[in-house]
């Protein structure tokens, strides 16, 4: 299918979809409407479970099984990337040369690293209370660690980031989530049910398993993104194809 034909097929399809979609939009409940049946029930359940952040309560308490699915998709994507970006036959690994970086930027990276890590842990720990949670905190932690690569160079980052440890951390995060679910079964209620006493409202220990699952997801997301970026950095900075590989292709 040549390019113009493909474009025409798309344009016809797009016009049809646009017309139908616009027509459907006018039948949707108007923006800002008052009819949110699921939302009201979710908020009521969240308050009953002493979880201040209703979104975290939905994610880790009422729909914890779906979050397990999301987490497994994330784990599979990381696994796929690790397999795809591994160092194959005919490639050799050169160690990265130090980058000429201004002192200001280097100092910024070194000073910001602890601050970013503290904020990352704060976002993960306050998941059940204020906006935040395992998913967001995990990403902030992973980005915090890469401040060393951004502000310094890959050698500095590699020294403090043993990739094997983070691959294990990724798996442990996922396993901790499942084990917490099984613990609920052992305690005699459903898989991933919130059996832990809910604690007092709006305190760090409130919400029962929501806090535990938050930490498990935070660990898995942080380690998963670090492993992802490690593989991309290896490919972009270190791994080069040797001459005979290109000749043979």
């Amino acid at each position: 299918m040549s390019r113009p034909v493909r474009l025409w097929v798309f344009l016809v399809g797009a016009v049809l979809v646009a017309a139908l979609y616009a027509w459907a939009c006018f039948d949707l409940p108007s923006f800002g409407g008052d009819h949110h049946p699921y939302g009201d029930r979710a908020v009521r359940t969240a308050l009953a479970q002493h979880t201040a952040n209703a979104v975290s309560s939905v994610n880790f308490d009422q729909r914890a099984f779906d979050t397990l699915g999301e987490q497994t998709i994330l784990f599979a994507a990381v696994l796929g990337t690790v397999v795809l970006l591994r160092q194959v036959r005919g490639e050799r690994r050169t160690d990265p040369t130090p980058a000429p970086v201004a002192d200001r930027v280097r100092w910024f990276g070194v000073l910001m690293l602890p601050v970013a890590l503290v904020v990352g842990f704060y976002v993960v720990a306050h998941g059940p209370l204020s906006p935040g949670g395992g998913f967001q905190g995990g990403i902030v932690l992973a980005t915090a660690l890469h401040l060393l690569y951004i502000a310094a160079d890959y050698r500095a980052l590699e020294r403090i980031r043993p990739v094997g440890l983070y691959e294990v951390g990724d798996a442990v995060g996922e396993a901790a989530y499942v084990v917490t679910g099984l613990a609920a079964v052992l305690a005699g209620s459903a898989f991933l049910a919130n059996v832990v006493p809910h604690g007092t409202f709006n305190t760090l220990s409130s919400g029962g398993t929501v806090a535990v699952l938050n930490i498990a997801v935070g660990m898995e997301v942080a380690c998963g993104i670090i492993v992802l970026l490690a593989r991309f950095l290896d490919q972009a900075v270190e791994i080069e194809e040797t001459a005979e590989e290109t000749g043979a292709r």
Partner: protein
Amino acid sequence: MSVLPYLAAGWIFLIGVYGLVTSRNLIHAVGCLTVTQSSTYVLLVAIGYRRGGTAPVFSDLPPGARVVDPVVQALALTDIVVGATVTALLLALVVQLRKRHGTVDPDKLAELRG
């Protein structure tokens, strides 16, 4: 105003797919896919909005307050993170294609099969 966010979500979706169809570089195509994904977040979060409501986070709010819908927020929140890792997987595929076929132009890739 009552339908603007929904139409904007539709526009972002169509423009993303247009970019995907006419892309000459697979990395650009992955970027367009990210744009298309973000249209679904806009639609999800716009449906959950309630006029005069505030975020369903009760750390600094009395429990009886009028809040927006937390369920759609939970859906969008996890999807953004998973979408990032799926983008990484797609980029890894692009790197593999580059290694194996030496090109990232989807049209040239199609010719290779012939």
